[in-house]
């Protein structure tokens, strides 16, 4: 697996679990790098079952949201699957306001999300 600086990746069975290095995902260069690293999981590392675990993430801008939307599109293109978990209430609210809660499958905990993949 290629080196990652903005994310920490681990495999839980068939699920590729992604955690975020930054507590606040706002820096433009870091967000660009985050997007590249997320996309590389699909395009280079050929991961197709991804779980984004937001534990420890305090804040993220809409630019970071856009990277996750792009990731979702890339996964869809390879019939992959994506779930999110451990969003703090305020970030979950952002997904709700923007209706992205209809785009992403958001679960409360990592075990909930892994179980929901039904692998």
């Amino acid at each position, binding site marked *: 697996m290629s080196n990652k600086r903005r994310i920490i990746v681990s495999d839980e069975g068939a699920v590729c679990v992604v955690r975020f290095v930054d507590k606040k995902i*706002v*820096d*433009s260069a870091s967000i660009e790098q985050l997007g590249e690293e997320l996309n590389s999981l699909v395009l280079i590392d050929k991961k197709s079952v991804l779980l984004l675990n937001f534990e420890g993430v305090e*804040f993220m*801008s*809409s*630019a970071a*949201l*856009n*990277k996750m*939307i*792009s990731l*979702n*599109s890339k996964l869809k293109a390879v019939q992959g*699957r*994506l*779930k999110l978990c451990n969003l703090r*209430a*305020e970030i979950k*609210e*952002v997904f709700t*306001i*923007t*209706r*992205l*809660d*209809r*785009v*992403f*499958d*958001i*679960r*409360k905990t990592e075990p909930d999300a892994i179980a*929901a993949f039904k692998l």
Partner: protein
Amino acid sequence: MKSKTAACYQETPDSLSQPLCKEASMLAPSKDSMSWSYHQLISSETDVGHAQIEILMTQLEKFGWDGRDLFHVRMAVEEAVVNAIEHGNKRDPLKLVELDFRVSPDLCYIDVIDQGEGFDPNALHDCTDEEFVDKPRGRGVMLIKELMSETMYNAKGNQLTMIRRRNDPAFEIVPEDDESDEGSIEK
């Protein structure tokens, strides 16, 4: 970061703004009535903008702001400042962004002005429409409107004035629908 900011503006005007339109001026509290006010002209660099946002956040916390109130202001000002730098000034090193922050225990007033062409916020597509909901653009302006108590753009669209009232009843938490959190739609 601050010295970098100051160094950029030795020959710049004190303000980029025209007098506020009538509606926006009604939003603006007088500086005397606020507990803290801050005015800065910054370069069109997001790291400089983020440093200014941290100054605002620190003051809000000093005045007891926390939780959703603080998060909502951070989200709105983040989107506003980044939009001004990236979409307004297009990161032009010759253009500036003017920031005016005023904070009290109960009110946060933010004015963000860029030197770009301006835009019509009403002409943006609705990012929650089915056609656009999975497209990676257009959420910043919507979030600003949704997360602040009052927002107003000038006619040109290069100046955003916004207010957030602390504990604003408009932002009371709606009880969460447990069903919606169970991800019933398999993606």
